[in-house]
């Protein structure tokens, strides 16, 4: 049951299939209706499911998320779109003070099954505010589930899973892959939230990545192979909950690890991965876990972004520094 589709189409399929399967699933946000979203992710949903199931709202992100929370309280499963990463910030209070905490506040009597879709990260030459890697804000917030697909199959599978999840999910869409065409096998998709995938087995070192950094890590591993180094790649898929078992198994196996993420490194998800892997695998490590991340700077202007983004060269440099010679 494979088909060739872009990531935007895979997400669109997931929305369609979820809306078909469950009447309480509703999609809303800015420009998601007749236009089909600025990335065409919601293409045709209003036409096919009607105004009540997929609709545009006034232009206000706190409003969108707050209204979604209320709809979830009243038995619906809203899937809302924030148009770009930085435009989710107006909704930050709603997300952190309510969406994340509501189930806890009510001791589980009112959970909020809802999905906040955020096209995130860079690599598209976008103007300022269109390329933030904002996952750390959400991952640090207890009560949120945070997932980020790296390929089109996972884009489908994880969104289906997120919509069925009993708790609110921040679903991060690596926007630079929206239009990448891939063979997708919807039936074979692993829709387990909380499970990382070993997307490449390796003996020498483990690259740990998620979202848009996974393809970069894979490319680095390819390149390393030509130089005789065997690198494994773990795709987290789910940042929260975090799959310690899968990640640590690989790291223990290889004794060396590099974390790859686009976001600025300071107090980031990459920091967490480095810290927790070290805590759990310390005596297996031949070298400190290295982080290859964005610099600690605001996302740069389009002509400068290539300096900022982790690339294969930078990953391979980090791998080279994993103290392959005996240390003093």
């Amino acid at each position: 049951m494979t088909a060739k589709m872009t990531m935007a189409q895979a997400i669109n399929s997931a929305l369609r299939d979820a809306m078909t399967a469950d009447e309480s699933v509703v999609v809303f946000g800015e420009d998601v209706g007749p236009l089909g979203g600025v990335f065409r992710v919601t293409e045709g949903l209003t036409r096919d499911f009607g105004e009540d199931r997929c609709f545009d709202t006034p232009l206000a992100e706190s409003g969108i998320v707050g209204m979604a929370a209320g709809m979830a309280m009243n038995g619906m499963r809203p899937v809302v779109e924030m148009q770009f990463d930085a435009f989710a910030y107006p909704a930050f209070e709603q997300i952190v003070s309510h969406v994340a905490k509501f189930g806890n506040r009510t001791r589980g009597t009112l959970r909020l099954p809802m999905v906040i879709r955020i096209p995130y990260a860079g690599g598209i030459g976008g103007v300022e505010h269109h390329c933030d890697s904002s996952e750390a804000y959400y991952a640090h917030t207890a009560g949120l589930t945070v997932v980020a697909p790296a390929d089109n199959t996972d884009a489908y599978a994880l969104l289906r899973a997120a919509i069925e999840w009993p708790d609110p999910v921040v679903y991060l869409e690596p926007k630079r892959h929206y239009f990448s065409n891939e063979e997708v096998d919807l039936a074979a998709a692993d829709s387990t939230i909380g499970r990382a995938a070993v997307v490449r087995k390796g003996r020498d070192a483990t690259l740990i990545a998620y979202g848009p950094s996974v393809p970069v890590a894979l490319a680095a591993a390819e390149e390393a192979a030509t130089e005789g180094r065997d690198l494994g790649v773990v795709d987290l898929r789910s940042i929260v909950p975090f799959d310690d078992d899968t990640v640590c198994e690989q790291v223990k196996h290889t004794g060396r690890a590099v974390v790859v993420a686009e976001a600025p490194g300071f107090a980031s998800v990459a920091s967490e991965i480095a810290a927790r892997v070290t805590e759990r695998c310390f005596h297996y490590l031949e070298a400190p876990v290295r982080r290859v991340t964005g610099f600690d700077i605001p996302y740069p202007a389009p002509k400068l972004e290539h300096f900022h983004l982790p690339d294969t060269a930078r990953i391979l440099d980090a791998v080279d520094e994993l103290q392959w010679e005996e240390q003093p």
Partner: protein
Amino acid sequence: MSVDELGAAVATVRILDEAGDLVDGADRPDSDALLAGYRQLVHGRRLNEQAGALVRQGRLAVYPSSRGQEACQVACVTALSEGDWLFPTYRDAVAIATRGVDPVEVLSMLKGDWHCGYDPAQHRVAPQATPLATQLLHAVGVAHAARLKGEDTVVMALCGDGATSEGDFHEACNFAAVFASPVVFFVQNNKYAISVPLARQSVAPSLASKAVGYGMPGVRVDGNDLGALSTVLGEAVEQARRGGGPTLVEADTYRVEAHTNADDATRYRTTDEVDEWAGRDPLTRVSAYLRGVGALDDDIEAEFAADADRMAARVREGLGVDVAPDPDELFAHVYATPTQQLVQQRAALQGEFDVEEA
């Protein structure tokens, strides 16, 4: 037309004046309904007093009193049907109790046992909201979902004068108006946001006039006049139920006590001002009117008081029981199913107890 004229065009609805006399041109309120309301006012006042006493005794950490606002607290609830929803703030304990939630459960949040002491789904009363104005959007969401599901639910969304300055107030009003959601936004304009007076919150001629900019009806009502409140809120609820969309209702009232017991109101307002408003007490005018029409006498008054005393005794008793804090509560509800990490963290905490016990 100048803005002043536009704003002034929103007049204040009144039925009874401070002395309990019918104002010119007002319809005579239904005595039975008013008497039932009066009973709830007495209850509400008693709950405010009891909670205040519990704070002084150290049984409650803090209590934001609605003394002086009891008519608002009662009227916004009696306007609702069973299937409707109430979205209260931290100051609306009396409204929640009027809705039928056990006051002990309501106050347990302020005792520190848990973030919300009652089951919101059971009573259709949202948890008391602390982040100002945020709950108004949830109210719109609940209402919009009801509309999509074809239910005739109405949502009563409460906030204070201060909260109208928040962006979420704006977004909620606008969403409700655009989607014609069955919501009544009920602003208790008690003239202060902690220490900040209304004049620093808004220079509009009234808060109700904000409705103009959303394209919804705005009504200003005497917030110490139970009959007027019941009429205005009742009409707004019925209009919403009929599909007529939201209404913004502003109650002109006053926070007679300090913001909470932790606040010192003498720092920012005069006792003269407070006294003046105490003279416009929402209970007095109803009892005066009801006595005037012969619907209330000392016996009934005594019965209401005895009733309220029993409630207060139950509250004292209920809050006197100490619930042993259960560390499981830290981890149990964060997610529907605790993550592996939370299971481990819970085990680590348990390990600490095991060591202590050993």
